[in-house]
């Protein structure tokens, strides 16, 4: 728990074609669990709000500090947890997609260094860069 840390929200905006005043796509409450010593993965949680005026589709997630990043979902049925990869994730206009423990999450594998950034790639070609701030090393307790 001591190494469970919070990365404060990094916000960002997709270069995109919003007709609204605010940023079209916003990620908030970005939390990354620090990989335990020697453990091969961490999990990432966040909220992504889509105010772009159209539906968006996340097709890839990456990070320079991880060898591979996938979107996963934990599904609990009849008391059994099953984890499944989500190849692509659609977020309807106006919706907020929540990645949270026990549900959708980013699986960040093969860490090599302190996590600093996560990039979400969209079907449109846009990118959303989430910079994980200096607060990463702050203890959650």
């Amino acid at each position, binding site marked *: *728990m001591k190494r469970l840390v919070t990365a404060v929200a990094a916000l960002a905006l997709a270069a995109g074609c919003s007709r609204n005043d605010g940023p079209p796509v916003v990620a908030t409450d970005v939390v990354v669990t620090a990989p335990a010593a020697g*453990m091969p*993965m*961490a*999990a990432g949680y966040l909220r992504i709000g889509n105010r772009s005026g159209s539906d968006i589709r996340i097709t890839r997630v990456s990070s320079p500090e991880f060898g591979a990043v996938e979107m996963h979902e*934990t599904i609990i049925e009849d008391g059994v947890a*099953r984890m499944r990869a989500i190849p692509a994730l659609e977020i309807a206009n106006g919706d907020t997609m929540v990645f949270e*423990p026990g549900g959708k*999450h980013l699986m960040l594998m093969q860490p090599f260094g302190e996590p600093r950034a996560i990039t979400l790639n969209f079907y449109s070609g846009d990118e959303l860069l989430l910079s994980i701030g200096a607060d990463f090393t702050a203890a959650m307790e």
Partner: protein
Amino acid sequence: MPSRTLLISLVLGIAIAAGLALALRDSTGQAMPRAATLLPAGNTLPDFALLDQGGTRAGKGVFEGQWDVVFFGFTNCPDICPATMTVLGQARRQLEALGQQPLPRVVLVSVDPERDTPEAMARYIAYFGDHNLGLTGELVEIRKLTDALGIFFQKAGGDADAYGVDHSTVVLVIDPWGRLKALFSAPQTVADLVHDLPLIMAGEP
């Protein structure tokens, strides 16, 4: 009439709350667990031969002498396992801060013996607090324990070294005589564990 609706809602709310409060006490007026399911039969565990996180052989006797809260998971599980282990560790720390005696030990039993060596278990369980126990070993030995306790697990799809394991999410409570006494179904919360564990541990031996 909004005020009347509000009044009715309030009365209903109070009635429901009172009903719930009553339901949480048994016929003798004693507080009852609000989330855990008590298992009065207290089934004993079968024999098994596993290894603890120090590589020491551990049989059914490892569950004797203290209260244990037991979860089944694996160290390559990024989401539900760390979330559950975090909740169990937090609950134990809160109980300790409240002066609860005895304190339960947190136990993780691996459902992924291919990758979960004792060394991997040691690193993993230390991450979630002190005084934790990790058990791993031969698949057939793990199955002896999980089959007896009604725990399901099955290797799922994925790459050769990046596969997942589907597994039960229940948390079991085992008494100092090595008997299954109660279970907490997912999602477990710190508040429920802190409320229920002292009641379970104070129950009839």
